[in-house]
């Protein structure tokens, strides 16, 4: 990277307003060829909006874009793409019903005779490209039948395969496993070597320090800082993002959420809050046993496709099971029925929130209160005051950034949408809460708050099953960890054994065996 090189893409004093919010307020950013530029900030700071201005999705209200040295205004994402700006948007934006190969190649399918798409070549090429990302799958299958991680790798492969001078990644790792993150990083390093400029948005600070050269911190739509990343201490970075003093952050313990791990309680005589036995589903789960005692946070570790999400879905009846049973507080649950599970006090925050959770056109207030309505109403009449209180508490604690509680959720930033859903599940106070990637896409400040909330609930006697591809979060949050591999429980860690290294070892150990 040569600092003297002219910027390939530059934003000058860009402003963008939405009704009720100023999303960007005079933002300037220069992107140099061959650099990886981190773009960070709290949820709702304006990162995605800036990206969408770069790629022609949004028209700026003020300021100008300079691309390759001349002022530019992209009318559509297609124009930006043609000009060499390739983007992975925050929400995986592919077509779920189309096949993997067609998604990957959409817009640049290989042509055969008569200009007609050469399908054999298309499938071959798609397979080859994906293999380069460590994804081996039947590329003819509809995309939606694959896990979120694989979908994200397809999005990545698609963006990188387009001949680009600038590659923008808006939270590309939010559904990736450590191993896939490594793949991503090697891709990024290669892009860098080729002189391509990369914009990298993430709330995982470790990642930033690993791949990024410079950083721009956005706060409330303004640039709070720009400079080389290596010189910036981690706490200082957080302080810049949150707009607080360094000392305050240091003493407030915002980054390290530490506590004593609850020791396994005396379980003689006591019943687990939920006990799942022999959950089996062809090709996915092979007899998984999980128990969660009241007041305990159990983490599920493992790689992508290990069956963690499927285990959670199996427990709440959202995945048809071939065999196995679920016992809640001593009573067997009717399998395959989510209604029965909810009635018994088991609820799941699903992994794919867009498809399975959020109701985009409803307000923040309605989305939060939705699941809690039965407990907030008497004889079918809902108490507005109670709803207001709950909504207010969660909006404050999780720092949900919205113009008002009545703003439609679809207008919120990605991370704030996540917070709304999380609030919905925390608000119903079930007996057992299954959280699948609860802090995905949530900023550092709110992350600590989420962990604190989960911990409070556990203290009150709730059983929590926590799934997270962020090992740090698992280690900090869980009392006990079960490691899954290929649909089986291959290890259990508790007490002092709960460390990142031991989890990795547990995954790898079995891996070596079954590969060999």
């Amino acid at each position, binding site marked *: 990277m040569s600092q003297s090189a002219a910027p390939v893409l530059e934003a000058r004093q860009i402003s963008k307003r939405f009704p009720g919010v100023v999303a960007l307020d005079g933002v300037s950013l220069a992107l140099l060829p061959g650099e990886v530029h981190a773009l960070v900030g709290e949820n709702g700071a304006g990162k995605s909006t800036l990206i969408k201005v770069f790629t022609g*999705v949004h028209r700026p209200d003020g300021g100008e874009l300079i691309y390759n040295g001349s002022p530019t205004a992209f009318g*559509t*994402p*297609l124009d930006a*793409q*043609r000009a060499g700006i390739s*983007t992975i*948007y925050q929400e995986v*934006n*592919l*077509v*779920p*019903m*189309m096949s993997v190969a*067609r998604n990957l190649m*959409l*817009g640049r*399918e290989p042509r055969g005779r008569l*200009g*007609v*798409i050469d*399908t054999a070549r298309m499938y071959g090429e798609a397979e080859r490209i994906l293999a380069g990302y460590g994804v*081996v*799958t*039947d590329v003819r*299958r*509809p995309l*939606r*039948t694959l896990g979120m991680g694989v979908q994200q790798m397809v999005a990545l492969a*698609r963006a990188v395969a387009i001949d680009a001078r600038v590659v923008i990644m808006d939270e590309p790792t939010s559904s990736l496993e450590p191993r896939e993150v490594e793949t991503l990083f090697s891709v990024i390093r290669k892009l860098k070597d080729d002189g391509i400029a990369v914009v990298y948005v993430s709330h995982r600070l470790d990642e930033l320090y690993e791949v990024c050269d410079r950083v721009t911190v956005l706060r409330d739509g303004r640039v709070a800082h720009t400079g080389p990343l290596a010189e910036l201490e981690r706490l200082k970075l957080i302080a810049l993002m949150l707009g607080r003093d360094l000392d305050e952050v240091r003493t407030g313990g915002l980054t390290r959420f530490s506590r004593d791990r609850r020791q396994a309680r005396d379980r003689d005589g006591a019943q687990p809050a939920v006990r799942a036995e022999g959950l089996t589903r*062809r*090709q*996915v789960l092979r007899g998984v046993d999980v128990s969660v005692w009241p007041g305990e946070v159990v983490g599920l570790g493992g790689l992508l*496709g290990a069956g963690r999400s499927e285990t959670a879905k199996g427990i709440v009846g*959202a*995945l*048809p099971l071939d065999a196995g049973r679920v016992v809640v507080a001593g009573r067997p649950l009717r399998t395959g029925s989510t209604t029965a599970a909810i009635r018994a006090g088991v609820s799941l925050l699903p992994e794919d929130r867009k498809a399975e959770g959020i109701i985009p056109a409803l307000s923040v207030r309605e989305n939060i209160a939705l699941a809690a309505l039965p407990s907030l109403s008497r004889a079918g009449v809902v108490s507005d005051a109670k709803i207001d209180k709950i909504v207010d508490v969660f909006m404050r604690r999780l720092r949900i950034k919205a113009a008002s509680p009545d703003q439609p959720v679809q207008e919120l930033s990605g991370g704030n949408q996540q917070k709304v859903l999380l609030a919905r599940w925390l608000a119903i106070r079930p007996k057992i809460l299954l959280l699948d990637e609860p802090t995905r896409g949530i900023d550092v400040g709110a992350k600590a708050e989420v962990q604190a909330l989960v911990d409070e609930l556990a203290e009150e006697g709730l059983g929590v099953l926590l799934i997270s591809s962020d090992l740090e979060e698992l280690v900090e949050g869980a009392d006990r960890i079960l490691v899954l591999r*290929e649909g089986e429980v291959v290890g259990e860690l508790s007490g002092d054994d709960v460390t990142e290294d031991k989890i990795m070892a547990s995954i790898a150990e079995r891996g070596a065996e079954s590969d060999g």
Partner: protein
Amino acid sequence: MTRSPGREQVSRVLQQHGALMVLAALAIVGSIAFDSFATAGNAASIVVSSSFTAIIAIGMTFVIISGGIDLSVGSLFVFGGVLAAYGSQYGLFVALALPLAACGLVGLLQGLLIARTGMAPFIVTLAGMLGVRGLMLAISDEGATTYLVKDSAFARLGQGGLLGLTWPVYITALLAVAAMVLLQRTAFGQNVYAVGGNEPGAALMGVPVARTKVYVYLMSGLLAGLAGVLNAARLSSGVTILGIGLELDVIAAVVIGGTLLTGGAGGITGTIAGVLLLGVIQSLINQVGNLTSAFQQVVSGLFLALVVVAQRLLGRAQRLG
């Protein structure tokens, strides 16, 4: 680490080829039950009478896969027929060009309205349907005037044929093959699926969403007009009061053929099977003899309901797979 649950594959095959299987089953049952069903003559008459619906249904398949709907096709079918009959007094070329230009124009306008203003396809094409029908009534004195075909070359287009099948059947077959290639093997076809499957996502992936929609409605209008032209040639006249409710039959055939009403999935083979299936049901009911043709609608309706329920279940099985 690839998972390939058989259940998911089975449900996908059922979704795509269910209509074809039921069609085959019904044909076999029909041949066993009725002597007069499995004759070449009866088969030919089913195919000939289905061909007009099939042409319209091909266009409708594109529309529905793109996530839209076109209610104007019944009216355009009639409009095309009348203009063809009227135009035939000026020769074959005018008999073909006039209706295609007019119906294409209506389709184009509808497409532009839908794509550029974001109005709902249901509303725009409902307006198109009513508007065109009103126009028809106006120029034909409330349906009293019937335009007769004046050109014999034009009439031969609808009535002549080869090997017991009329030209419209061959034209339909050609169009179906072309549509299949267009849908599966060209960028335009991929864009249609992408727009119907995830419109905002498609836009971000660089798909020209508006242009794709315009083409789809233009095509639907053209094909509806063409079906009308061929039908006028067959009947040697342009009758203005035909085609009421035809759009619904066409939509039913497309959906029975496995195309999802919500967009994003479907295909031409299924549509052709769906059209033939409705034709066979009609024919079987005629065989029974003492049942009125109204009964055919009841059966088609029940069948449609069944298919939609099955699609939901199959879709669920695939998602959970």
